[in-house]
């Protein structure tokens, strides 16, 4: 620090950190709001999804001057904003950033926070809050945001003094993006946004003593795991989003290739390994593939990588892989032994543990064992897949649409799905060549996720084709975000698979409630007319012969486009592991 008295420079629309370099004073006067935006720039944030309001006005006022360095996307609802943030994070691998005002603005974030929490998506949400002196007085648009969001955030913090802002935001980005990622919410009172501080520059957070995001890898566990894999006759790998979040796709591929290990994915692990990889044996879980489910109960060593044994994956737990020794690789120690007891826990970042394991395992090919998966695939193909992808009935199937979409995209597009039957079908049949291509709401199953997440995914990966596959139910939950598409001129393809039912619930009512279709009959507006009002082109088809051309037209179209395909009303998603059943009791019809 200089001892010479300097007039503290003030900032207008310039980078404070740049000014600081030339300043002799060592500080520059900033408002809390400016400090927030400086933090975002220092963290490499390029896009913010948000919605202004009273208590966050000072930040938006500052944003006016930062417009050239921070792209702000005005959404139509805060839930749309946070889902867009999630889509951005999932397609880019970066931290998504969301702004919302106090009260209803903040409470509208809650669904997205819960979704990001359970699906481990890194987010930093900044909410405005009433003046500190009004806290607890039931002031206008005051809600106890910190306590409302505590169960659905990895960390949250309320700032009432602007001097804390640089440090707290650095901590927020560090916590959101490291270890097992998750959403962080920073609630900033209005006085702190206005308050002027002597800004000393931004320092990224690299260490918090009570937080250890990267466990030290214990070699002996890796050795035990390798020994177990080497002795295995029927090893089976399950992989989840941990592979993608750990940016360990290459390491994972090397691992299974060396060991000749058949690998199946969870819903969120999808796209971590190319679909057509010979060791990719398919999808796990309730609507997963036949082989991976049945053979879970036949393998001798189960190797779980970055997945959490969700109940939709395991089915009935007391009949899950009881014959197998379990190796569990995870970065979060709370996941180990949570649902399935691990014989060998390998606690660590799979980017580190997988190469160590690969080094120690023998090069093998489990040809016979792999053939077993293929045999199950053949059976599933005969009973389910053929009829789904190449139906002979009049009614269109969701599967045939996805199948034709694969042909046209060659598996290079990002597929964003909503929640329900179309989600299961899209994930089952969509082809992926590269990672971070599947964006879906897994753990929380948030209907309405699809459209805003697709918007975010496009901003996160602008060079890629983004296709939102959405059902007629979920689309109606967040279709206000068509306005965001309109205003930003974004290029997102929207593929509505319309069965005029809340299909997944209807399927359950058919199978388990004697076809008592209770409030699943849902009507839709004319979507083509609707998007037209937003200046988006669209088309509706109900003929098999028209599918391919219509998809091609959608993909060729410059800008956003909606294609609605009318599919069979009462088609079911199979195979299915009925709730309460073991994975080996999976039904093909």
């Amino acid at each position, binding site marked *: 620090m200089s001892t010479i008295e300097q007039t503290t420079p003030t900032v207008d629309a310039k980078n404070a950190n740049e000014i600081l370099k030339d300043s002799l004073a060592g500080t520059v006067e900033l408002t809390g709001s400016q400090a927030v935006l400086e933090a975002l720039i220092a963290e490499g944030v390029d896009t913010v999804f948000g919605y202004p309001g009273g208590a966050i006005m000072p930040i938006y006022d500052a944003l006016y001057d930062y417009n050239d360095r921070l792209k702000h996307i005005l959404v139509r609802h805060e839930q749309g904003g946070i889902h867009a943030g999630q889509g951005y994070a999932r397609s880019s691998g970066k931290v998504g950033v969301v702004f919302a005002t106090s009260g209803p603005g903040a409470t509208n974030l809650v669904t997205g926070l819960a979704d990001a929490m359970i699906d481990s998506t890194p987010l930093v949400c900044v909410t405005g809050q009433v003046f500190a002196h009004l806290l607890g007085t039931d002031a206008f648009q005051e809600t106890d945001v910190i306590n409302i969001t505590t169960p659905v955030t990895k960390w*949250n913090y309320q700032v009432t003094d602007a001097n804390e802002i640089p440090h707290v935001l650095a901590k927020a980005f560090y916590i959101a993006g490291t270890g097992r990622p998750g959403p962080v919410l920073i609630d900033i009172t209005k006085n702190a946004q206005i308050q002027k501080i002597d800004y000393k520059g931004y320092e990224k957070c690299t*260490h918090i*003593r009570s937080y250890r995001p990267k466990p*030290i890898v*214990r070699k002996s*566990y890796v050795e035990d795991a390798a020994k177990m894999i080497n002795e295995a006759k029927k090893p089976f790998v399950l992989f989840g989003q941990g592979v993608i979040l750990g940016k360990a796709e290459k390491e994972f591929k090397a691992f299974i290739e060396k060991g000749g290990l058949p690998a199946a994915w969870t819903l969120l692990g999808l796209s971590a390994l190319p679909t057509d990889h010979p060791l990719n044996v398919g999808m796990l879980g309730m609507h997963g593939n036949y082989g991976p489910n049945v053979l879970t109960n036949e393998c001798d060593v189960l190797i779980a990588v970055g997945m959490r044994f969700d109940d939709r994956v395991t089915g009935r737990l007391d009949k899950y892989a009881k014959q197998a020794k379990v190796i569990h690789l995870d970065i*979060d120690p709370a996941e180990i032994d949570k649902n399935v007891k691990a014989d060998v826990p390998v*606690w660590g970042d799979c980017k580190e543990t997988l190469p160590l394991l690969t080094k120690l395992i023998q090069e093998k090919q489990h040809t016979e064992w792999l053939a077993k998966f293929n045999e199950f695939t053949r059976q599933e193909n005969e009973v389910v897949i053929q009829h789904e992808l190449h139906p002979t009935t009049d009614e269109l199937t969701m599967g045939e649409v996805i199948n034709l979409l694969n042909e046209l995209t060659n598996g290079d597009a990002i597929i964003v799905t909503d929640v329900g039957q179309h989600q299961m079908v899209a994930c089952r049949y969509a082809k992926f060549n590269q990672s971070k291509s599947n964006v879906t709401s897994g753990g929380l199953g948030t209907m309405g996720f699809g459209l805003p997440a697709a918007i975010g995914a496009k901003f996160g990966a602008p060079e890629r084709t983004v296709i939102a596959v959405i059902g007629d139910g979920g689309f109606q939950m967040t279709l206000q975000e068509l306005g965001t598409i309109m205003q930003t001129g974004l290029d997102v393809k929207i593929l509505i698979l319309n069965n005029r039912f809340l299909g997944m619930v209807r399927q359950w009512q058919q199978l388990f409630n004697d076809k008592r279709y209770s409030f699943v009959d849902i009507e839709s507006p004319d979507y083509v007319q609707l998007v037209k009002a937003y200046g988006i082109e669209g088309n509706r088809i109900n003929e098999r012969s028209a599918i391919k051309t219509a998809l091609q037209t959608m993909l060729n179209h410059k800008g956003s486009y909606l294609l609605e395909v009318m599919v069979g009303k009462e088609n079911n998603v199979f195979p299915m592991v009925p709730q309460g059943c073991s994975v080996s009791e999976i039904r093909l019809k």
Partner: protein
Amino acid sequence: MKLEYTITVYTENQVGLLNRIAIIFSRRKINVESLNVSPSEVEGIHRFTIVINETEEVVRKLCRQIERQVEVLKAYYNTNEEIIWQEMALYKVPTDEVAEKMKVERLLREHGARAVVIRKDYTIFETTGQREETDKLVKVLEPFGLIEFVRSARVAIIKASKGFHEKLKEFEIQEPSEELAENEFLDQGQGVFTM
């Protein structure tokens, strides 16, 4: 088998952390029998003492969920045999009853109690001990018109603990790990937990 477990949590001193820890129990509909928050042997580090009735498996998972919280340093769980624990109780009784009918001296001796306040209208006794002991004095004082009774949360010392860092070694066995390196981050910065 459900047992009484005492969970000891070392944390940073942070607003809102109490809620973060409390909801880990309430989310699973687990009743907290007793909760105490106090300073610990390490300056600036808080120590939560939580008592619940649960199976060991549940308690172990709860501790891992607690440790997952950013501002939690470490959580331990112990059975009653593994800890020394005490609770303090206060009893308010009418002074005239006490003076006329009670053999105060014997009472104090037998229950390790002492009189904290003696006024014309009431007297307050205090005793420290385990649940049965403090309960026993309630029974004794009830016939004399016990006006108020209050008992504190449990405070506990882990017998095997040689301070925070020593206990870490033991706990390490239950973690998927062998080495003690996990503690290394704690060494940095403030140099508090050197091993």
